[in-house]
């Protein structure tokens, strides 16, 4: 019997999958595997869907974690629950987000082949030394990160950037960056219970407002110019010294060893805001294995998935061959790498991971909307607030300060919050429940009253800070509304 395995790995990872397959065949004499490279991105996953639609699918398909829910919704995958039960595979065998990303509508549709701890926060020790920073002390708070980013940035005679400490939105694309910082700031993007998109969560807004502060500090067009020269592999900006700090996925360890073996770098947890942040935040990505609808040999297909994703020998084989982490938390492979440089740090990260990207059928749409929100915010595509209301009985000092700041922003002060683009309110006033202690609240949309508002900006209430916060709020609110509409339509079965 021959099983068709469609995988997504080119280059060295292709050799890894061949190695895994060889070891599987060695202990399964009756099953031969035919591994076929079928790249999976938005342009090429059509091949898989065409194969399923025509009734000639492969036996096993690799599916990206966030694709599991949409593919299940579209009817391309088979639920694995009966097989999992028979094999005694339980959720607690896996890192929780790895299991979560494969669970949709009460069923489990895939098992995680590789778990990507997103991300390791890495820094160039050499760049730290050159900038006069302690190479063994990475930033642990956003405030420290900002200071270090400034110290690590070099400008040329014409003001152009020669290198930069950090580009917040360049962590594997704007959408992944938004997830990364959004969670680190304490935000949430989706509530699976109520199927509500929450990408305009106040802490996600706060994260985006912080991200675009780099546009003001370093000039967004100069950063874009620098970014346009970023390459991959040998030309990766972190390897070539163009960027001193970044987020790195675990495959980066192998890549650095190959393309920049002399790079002096270290990895630790992601920094988080001192106030209201979630320290040591991360999320899990990674590829999963599943059985397509219409699979000719489902029992043997599941045995391949079980061995590769769950069996101690299989997960060890996959880990050794690929250098990636298995999704199975109790795999003996982890004992092999715990003491290895960099791998140990990534293992610490994945053991604390609590998040996966929202498990919902409009996942690709959400990613594009988040990217659009980040783009719109950083390129100034959203107008600053025109009308502002300040709700502060008795004109306290802060209200006077805010009023001055806002007049400097070119905003008109209005009395009625219902007419204002943005309303500023003392968070300690009655009926306004705001987390993170004492703040001043800002409400954006006209429909929201201060009492019902869920948005807030943290001090300092400078004009710049309020403007960025407002822009981030509008951008993310739009993304939230659009994605919610899309999701509701899919769930309703509408066009």
């Amino acid at each position, binding site marked *: 019997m021959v099983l068709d395995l469609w995988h997504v790995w080119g280059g060295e990872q292709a050799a890894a999958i061949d190695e895994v397959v060889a070891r599987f065949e060695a202990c399964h004499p009756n099953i031969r595997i035919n591994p076929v490279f079928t790249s999976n991105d*938005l*342009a090429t996953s059509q091949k898989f*869907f065409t194969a399923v639609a025509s009734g000639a699918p492969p036996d096993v398909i690799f599916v990206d974690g966030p694709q599991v829910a949409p593919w299940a919704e579209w*009817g391309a995958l088979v639920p694995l629950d009966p097989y999992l039960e028979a094999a005694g595979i339980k959720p607690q065998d896996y890192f929780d987000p790895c299991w979560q990303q494969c669970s949709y509508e009460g069923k489990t549709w895939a098992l995680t082949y590789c778990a990507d701890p997103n991300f390791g926060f890495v820094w160039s020790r050499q760049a730290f030394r050159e900038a006069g920073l302690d190479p063994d002390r990475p930033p642990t708070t956003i405030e420290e990160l900002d200071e270090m980013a400034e110290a690590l940035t070099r400008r040329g005679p014409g003001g152009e950037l020669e290198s930069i400490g950090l580009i917040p939105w360049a962590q594997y694309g704007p959408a992944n960056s938004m997830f990364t910082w959004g969670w680190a700031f304490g935000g949430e993007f989706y509530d699976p219970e109520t199927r509500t998109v929450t990408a305009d969560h106040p802490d996600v807004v706060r994260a985006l407002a912080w991200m675009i502060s780099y546009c003001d500090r370093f000039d967004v067009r100069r950063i874009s110019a620098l970014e346009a020269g970023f390459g991959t592999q040998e030309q990766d900006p972190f390897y070539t010294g163009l960027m001193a700090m970044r987020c790195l996925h675990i495959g980066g360890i192998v890549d650095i060893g190959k393309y920049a073996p002399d790079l002096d770098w270290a990895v630790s947890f992601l920094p988080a805001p001192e106030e209201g942040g979630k320290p040591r935040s991360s999320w899990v990505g990674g590829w999963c294995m599943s059985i397509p609808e219409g699979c000719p040999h489902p029992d043997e297909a599941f045995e391949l998935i079980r061995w590769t994703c769950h069996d101690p020998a299989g997960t060890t084989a996959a880990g050794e061959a690929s250098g990636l982490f298995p999704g199975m938390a109790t795999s003996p492979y982890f004992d092999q790498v715990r003491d290895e440089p960099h791998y140990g740090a990534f293992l610490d990260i994945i053991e604390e991971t609590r998040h996966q990207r929202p498990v919902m059928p409009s996942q690709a749409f959400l990613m594009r909307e988040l990217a659009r929100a980040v*783009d719109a915010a950083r390129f100034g595509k959203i107008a600053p607030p025109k009308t502002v209301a300040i709700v502060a009985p008795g004109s306290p000092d802060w209200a006077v300060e805010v009023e001055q700041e806002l007049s400097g922003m070119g905003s008109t002060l209005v009395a009625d919050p219902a007419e204002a683009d943005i309303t500023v309110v003392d968070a300690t006033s009655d009926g306004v429940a705001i987390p993170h202690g004492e703040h001043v609240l800002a409400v954006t949309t006209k429909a929201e009253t201060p009492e019902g508002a869920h948005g807030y900006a943290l001090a300092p209430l400078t004009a710049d800070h309020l403007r960025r916060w407002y822009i981030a709020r509008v951008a993310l609110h739009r993304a939230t509304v659009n994605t919610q509409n899309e999701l509701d339509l899919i769930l309703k079965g509408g066009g």
Partner: protein
Amino acid sequence: MASTSARRSRGWLRTELTGLLFSSPAIIGLAAVMAYPVAASLYYSFCNYSVLKPPTWVGTANYERLLTDELFWTSLWNTLYFAAFSVPLGIIVAFLLALLLNVKVRGMTVYRTIFYIPSIVPMVASSVLWIWLFNPQYGAVNALLRHVPGISDPPGWLSDPAWAKPTIILWSIWGVGNTVVIFLAGLQGVPQALYEAAEVDGASPWQRTLSITVPYMTPYLFFALVMGLIGSFQFFTPAMVMTNGTGGPADSTMFYALNLFHRAFSDFKMGYACAMAWVLFILVVIATLVVVKSSARYVYYESADEGAV
């Protein structure tokens, strides 16, 4: 009489059937790979359809939703913007190039080849080349621009929302070789006698071009206009390659076809995407009709022989 006519009609039927038989591969092929998908896409545009599950009828919901889809309007605007600049600019550049390449000088075939070469470079390859030519920091274009007095800070091109569309319009000019070839062929048909007569009358080269060449070339210019319009409405590949499919920065290169592609193949909303395709089709038909209907006013059809009389 009757039997003769019956024989005739039998003979007619025979001829018809034979004709149909011989053209059947083309007819069946066109019906299967063109007519059916086109008809099916019209049907699906009124459905919710995600390929693997059977389509469900939703009436005009997809079309209604387009009206409120902000990205639909953005992508339509980007596409119209692109067409409005790239088509006329392409025609003007191609026409000027054709005039230059029609001059009788030594080595003209070499020049003609040089200007045609970009048209045979695959779109993806030339798009990738363009990314690097227009790289803000290391690109050849900005390296040259920095030597121009007064330009200390050249544009960010594809990385700047304000410049991304103009950059792609510039790219489209690069591939005018095909149009140049058509124009060159057209230029051969302009009667030489008219030029000689005009020269005798003391017309300047500029007057000769404007009063003789341009009128005789209008059918070719018209052809280029129609084809250019259709092509630019469907503009896709370079936007996909140059922006990695994002249509960024900040939606500035989110063209209609790229948006449609995302709706179809990222979101598997085939019904919605089919509705978009039909709206695009209707827009192209309208634009083409406007151009064709108005062409009587400015297109001059007269064969070169008649003109020479």
